């Protein structure tokens, strides 16, 4: 297992380098001069601009800029924002909020997605199966931001059950509504995935064999149908953590949360290259690490996968 882990980590490296290079290229190939943007409406002072350029290495060839960035990133030195705050500090403030939000969304989608999916799959064709299916179809079809507004309007404004927007340091109840909005689409997909897995596993030969052994239908369901259905669901959940962090951009805007999504969004709008690249790098790392964990989990859950 250790060897396998090491190999997988080594395989991650080209992906991380490739991805950051791609993002770096896209960000720094942006038309428009980011330095000029910093001056806003004021006339550009060429000598100051040149100084800033050299400070941010913007005067060097692109690939050199990238290598310097990479070297610094390894020592957690992500540079400064245009307003001279260390990028690491900005991220340090924004990430915990988003992580909290993503974890809550993750728990929400995992619990409800799996539970409803199992109910639906085991009782295919019953009325509640149909209801669950229709609801999950609707959740996929209605864009997150529309769903967000609707919840915000009813739960927040009309009924006043939960705070409409989250403040600067949001707590559990502040994040409850954003988290369910963030997790809703994935939950719908998990319901569908779990349902189809459960109902296809029910007709497997080994399930019949288990019943022929004399096992009660309850333990057949638990040990054979559900256990085997969880393999792809866990895989989906694992890869979804990264996607949740990325998807936080929309949710954080709706609910006005100062998390990583909002910070990234502002960074992109202002053309703040170092900030954008740094955040995306961290997000990609999270995503790649989640994939790695999923691969490990997969090997644990499914003995057929060998550490090869």
């Amino acid at each position: 297992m250790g060897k396998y882990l090491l190999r997988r980590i080594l395989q991650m490296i080209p992906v991380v380098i490739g991805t950051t290079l791609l993002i770096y290229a896209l960000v720094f190939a942006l038309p428009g001069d980011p330095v000029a943007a910093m001056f806003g409406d004021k006339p550009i002072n060429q000598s100051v601009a040149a100084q800033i350029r050299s400070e941010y290495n913007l005067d060097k060839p692109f690939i050199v800029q990238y290598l310097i960035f990479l070297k610094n990133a390894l020592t957690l030195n992500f540079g400064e924002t245009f307003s001279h705050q260390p990028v690491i500090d900005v991220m340090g403030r924004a990430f915990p909020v988003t992580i909290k939000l993503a974890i809550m969304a993750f728990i929400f989608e995992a619990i409800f997605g799996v539970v409803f999916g199992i109910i639906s799959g085991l009782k295919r064709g019953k009325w509640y199966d149909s209801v669950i299916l229709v609801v999950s179809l609707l959740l996929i079809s209605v864009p997150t931001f529309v769903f967000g507004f609707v919840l915000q309007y009813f739960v927040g404004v009309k009924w006043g059950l939960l705070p409409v927007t989250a403040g600067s340091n949001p707590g559990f109840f502040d994040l409850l509504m954003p988290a369910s909005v963030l997790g809703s689409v994935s939950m719908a997909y998990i319901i569908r995935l779990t349902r189809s897995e459960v109902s296809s596993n029910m007709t497997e030969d080994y399930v019949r064999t288990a019943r022929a052994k004399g096992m009660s239908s309850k333990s057949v369901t638990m040990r054979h149908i559900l256990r085997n259905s969880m393999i792809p669901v866990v895989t989906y959940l694992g890869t979804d953590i990264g996607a949740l962090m990325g998807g936080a951009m929309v949710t954080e805007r709706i609910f006005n949360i100062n998390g990583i999504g909002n910070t990234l969004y502002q960074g992109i709008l202002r053309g703040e290259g170092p900030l954008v690249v740094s955040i995306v790098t961290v997000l990609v790392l999270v995503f790649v690490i989640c994939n790695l964990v999923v691969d490990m989990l997969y090997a644990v859950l499914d003995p057929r996968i060998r550490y090869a």
Partner: protein
Amino acid sequence: MTNNDTVANGAVKKESSTSPLLEVKHLDVEFTTDTGHAVKAVQDSSFTVYPGQWVAIVGESGSGKSTSAMSVLGLLPGTGKVTGGSIKLHGEELVGKSQKDYEKLRGTEMGLVPQDPMSNLNPVWRIGTQVKEALTANNMDVSREKRSSLSKSLSNAEVELKKSDDELFISSAEREGLLAAAKKALEAAHVARLDQKMENFSETWVAGSQTRWLVAQDLVKAGLDDDTAWGIAKEHVTGSSMDDRISGLLSEAGLPEASTRARQFPHEFSGGMRQRALIAIGLASRPDLLIADEPTSALDVTVQKKILDHLRTLTDSLGTAVLFITHDLGLAAERAQHIVVMYHGRVVESGPSLEVLQHPQHPYTKRLVNAAPSLASQRIISAKQRGEDADELDKLMEHHAKGEDILERGEHIITVDHLTREFKLPRKKEMFKAVDDVSFSVKRGTTLAIVGESGSGKSTVANMVLRLLQPTSGTVTYEGEDISTFQGAKLLDFRKHVQPVFQNPYGSLDPMYSIYRSIEEPLRIHKIGDRKSRIARVRELLDMVELPESVMGRYPNELSGGQRQRIAIARAMALDPDVIIADEAVSALDVLVQDEVLRLLNDLQAERGLSYLFITHDLAVVRQIADEVVVMQNGRLVEHATTDEVFDHPQMQYTRDLLDAIPGGKLQLGLD
């Protein structure tokens, strides 16, 4: 022995041996299709199983044999429902019982050994865990044997009933101590041939499987007096743990190193080993009735024989009755006392095995007996040989008589010379030799069969002869030329003359192609004829394989396996080849269909002087089609001789094993 233990399993009524264990009367089973109408899978079927008996249900796919068995277990798939008749187990009606009631019966009263060992074990649980489930689900006492209530009276009426404690198993912890004590006692008694006896003991005294009274019996037989023997047995045999019992069950099913194997996962097992695990599971709770649904059809013949022999011994000693479902009449007759033949959902004939086989009365049974390759003894006589043309017949009879002569003088159309093929195995340094120094040649107008079990390398040889795979060393020559030198037009010409028919009629036809396009494809590739002439040619070919013209517009999924295989043969014949390489071309087919396809191949050979390289795992089929046989094992050529030689005077042990394993091969049939 003097204590007042409750007598195991109650007093066995001797008279119960004459009352049926399972009685199925006028059973009707229906399935509902997607469109809502009912399809009858089983109609008005009756059969009876007595305790300790082997009863076989024989039929082709779709005959309703598995459906009948599953309705006994209450495990009909999907929309299946028993709509009429009665199923009685121990005189108790099962039809209409709830699943909860069935749960109580399954495992303890009836067990299942399913068909496909690959899909019937859950890939995520260890083998031992899956055996354990069978034990815990029925609250089995793992420390002692539960004899089927009728076992004694059936298997050995002489043995008196054992008390509950006498049925305690050896545990793995005590086993060493038991062996030591036995040795000491035997030494003290100055028993002869001590070492040999000890060796026997350590072999038969399996933890979790051998019981106290059997140990005592063994010791008495070895020469100890009753009291000493029972003393040792009582002291050292005090019941096994769950893990002991699991490995005991697995080793009873014939799995070596059972305690290690129990910790492995299904994917680490071969098909035969998985089947053994499934047998252990089926018998774990000592059911009175074991339903064995084609338990060995996915396995090599030699493995099949071993497993069935073992199952036989095991069920005999436990007194378990077996309802044995199979498509193989020979196998059924060989294994069961009573045969039930099913066709189109109905029982068409039943009776004592040999009687049914020797005097089949229903036209379907007759057809089945005639077609069963394992029961046939002769090479199929082609249409012409059957005598439409007297001159021709004479000539062919001569051919047959002087068969060996012709084989010796015959012109070689394909020669395989010191052929070797190595494969790189993942994570292993040394190369794996799939084919190891194989040489033979196919003579024009004759059939050479390569026989071997899975992993013997026979298909690899076929692929090299077809030039789909390059040999590591050695050559294949066609008409005296090395095929590896063929390029461009020359290669195309080779492909025109040497045509394949593959095993899987489902896989070798493109599902997107109509039958017409499939058969036309070789003509198109080789740019032969125009549209009109191709249509005419396809018609001709369909006629040749005895299929109606109307199938031209159809698609492979609408035809049966046998029909698809005919299409594949028609496609192979499209270019008028000289050689056909048939790789397990009839293995996937039902007996009757297989028989027809074999006849077709035989007729084509007689008419067109084709040469066949016939790859198969089934020696019984070989006898029907081949002139010469090459036997392969583990990539090597084991034996090479004429068919008669191989069947009458096999030289090698492996060939003899293969012959022995042909089900029903030794049955003497006084066919009418």
